[in-house]
């Protein structure tokens, strides 16, 4: 099984490129899945996905393999984890806890945790290839740092000790508690108010059994992401960002020990120019196109000179006339992936 993880900033068409990569592999005979973690749910439109957390097959005419797509539904994945891993007596308590609602409702944080949980679930389902579309950010790689942080926190003996002591202190009616970590806890409480800290700790004491299993799975998944035999990270960018994005992401990947394999420059204006001269508005439009096109070519060449040696391959995709929405547009992108564009002037 192979994993391809697409990273890139917003607006580069990362979701479409990820879906097209999966489609190209499905056409060639593999059983492929694309997982999007993008809250804008663009893949939903492109692949006509319905709501719900489970993956579904996308019918592709003439494909030797299979194309599947899955959305990362943070709320559903989390609810599912609670129902699967929490003690029956605690399930309702967790699902109705005020902090649980806040956590499930805030995209910051849970998105990352659930992405890794979902990758783990999907890797057991017998796909040849999984293409992951990460959240559109320079910090998308935090996706793979946060679960470890969360696991450490939930795991921490201190938190468990504090939770237990808190319950004890509450039960016997003490308002202040002992030394060491507990002292720090009471200080923190003094700043943020009893309520918030109590609720958070209370929540984690309930959530702990889930977090424990979660933490073990997250560590395993992150280890697979570091294995170059399994995983390849692909930087998706656009010409105006190519030079900076290429250098930035390759450096960030290297820092974390994630294997980089490809830089994919999407939305380039490298269409063939007309042979005859134009006049009027047509001339104005053509001059404008030509100027943009030259700047794209220059950016790609500069990026290749700077970052080309650090990746297996650089791919260049032309921008489509219309937004990538239907499967048809993904087919056009997939064809560009199958027949690499030569861009040197």
């Amino acid at each position, binding site marked *: 099984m192979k994993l391809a993880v697409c990273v890139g900033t917003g607006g580069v068409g990362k979701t479409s490129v990820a879906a097209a990569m999966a489609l190209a592999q499905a056409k060639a005979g593999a059983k492929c899945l694309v997982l999007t973690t993008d809250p804008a749910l663009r893949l939903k439109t492109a692949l006509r996905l319905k709501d719900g957390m489970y993956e579904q097959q996308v019918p592709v005419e003439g494909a030797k393999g299979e194309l599947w797509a899955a959305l990362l539904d943070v709320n559903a994945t989390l609810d599912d984890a609670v129902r699967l891993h929490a003690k029956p007596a605690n399930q309702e308590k967790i699902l109705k806890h005020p902090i649980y609602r806040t956590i499930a*409702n805030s*995209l910051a944080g849970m998105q990352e945790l659930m992405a890794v949980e979902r990758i783990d679930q999907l890797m057991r389902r017998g796909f040849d290839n999984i293409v992951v579309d990460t959240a559109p950010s*320079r910090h998308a790689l935090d996706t793979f740092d946060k679960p470890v942080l969360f696991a450490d926190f939930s795991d921490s003996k201190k938190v468990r000790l504090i939770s237990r002591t808190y319950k004890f202190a509450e039960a016997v009616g003490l308002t202040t508690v002992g030394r060491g970590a507990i002292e720090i806890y009471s200080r923190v409480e*003094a700043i943020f108010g009893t309520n918030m800290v109590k609720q958070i700790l209370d929540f984690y004491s309930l959530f702990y059994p889930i977090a424990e299993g979660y933490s073990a799975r997250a560590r395993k998944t992150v280890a697979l992401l570091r294995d170059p035999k399994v995983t390849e990270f692909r930087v998706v960018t656009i010409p105006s960002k190519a030079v900076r994005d290429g250098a930035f992401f390759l450096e960030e990947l290297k820092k974390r020990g994630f294997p980089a394999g490809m830089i994919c420059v999407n939305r380039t*204006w490298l*269409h063939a120019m*007309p042979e005859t001269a134009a006049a009027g508005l047509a001339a104005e439009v053509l001059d404008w196109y030509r100027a943009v096109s030259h700047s794209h070519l220059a950016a790609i060449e500069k990026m290749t000179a700077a970052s080309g040696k650090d990746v297996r391959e650089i791919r260049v995709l032309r921008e489509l006339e219309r937004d990538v929405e239907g499967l048809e547009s993904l087919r056009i992108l997939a064809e560009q992936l199958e027949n690499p564009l030569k861009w040197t002037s």
Partner: protein
Amino acid sequence: MNDSARLAIFCGKGGVGKTTLSLAAGLQHAMNGHRVLVVSSHPISELALAVSLDGLSARFPQAAPNLFVIYIDPRDLIADLVNKYFPVPMMAKKILNSSVFTNLIEVAPGLKEFFFLGRLQELSERRGAANPATSAYDYLIWDAPASGHFLSTLRAAKNFEVFLTGPMAAAGAQIHRFFSNRKNIQLFPVTPLEEMAIAETLDVAKAMATDFDLTCSAVLLNCASPLCSATESDIAKMQATPDSSPAMHFAVERGLTERQRMVELRERLSLPQLLIPRITNWANDLDLLVRIGAGMDLSQFS
């Protein structure tokens, strides 16, 4: 109303040019002799990855001292609070360095966003149209994060009010009131004329109206094709002698699609629109900012 009295927010989907337009607007004010503070969603060390201000003081010695760009790290605000609360440095340091504390801050939902909003409100109120003599700057601009995070940031205050009790809930209510008052906020959604970005613009405008009682001032249509501002007759003339080369096919098809979307957007969202043409070649980022800023007069919008 005096625009400088309000916090101008550039919001929209990721990658639409919020940072570029925020800095272009800021630089324009600075070149006109006003003091501007731009609160960026990029840490300063990474800002140059988006838009670089390299060479600002050499090229615009008059404007440079007027333009301030900051990044607010909520972790610093929380650390400040701890330091204030525990004047004994040893104690404050012990808390700040404890893993329980640092992890709590990372995972507490909305806590960082809540502190960020508090500081933004404070910056906004400290400035003063009311008291120009003590005010450090004339304009305040927030280069907001992408729509999803932007909305969850704004909602953090309301969540604190709803889910918590005591002083944090009261602070949440107060911050939410500030950000729901159109006397304090001027919203500029940024979007290219692309389907997904437009859909997000409509979502954000709707959320702003329902959750915050705010109306956007104008939609900034970024990277527009020259066909968006061409006359109908020029377009008809161009189409009379079509050019079938892939380059022209792409440029015309795309430009006309953009033009159509611009009209549709106007029908669905009755707001003023401002076209920001796609700049084709520029020597450096500063050059780009000056050229964009020159064509972007935001003072015309209420």
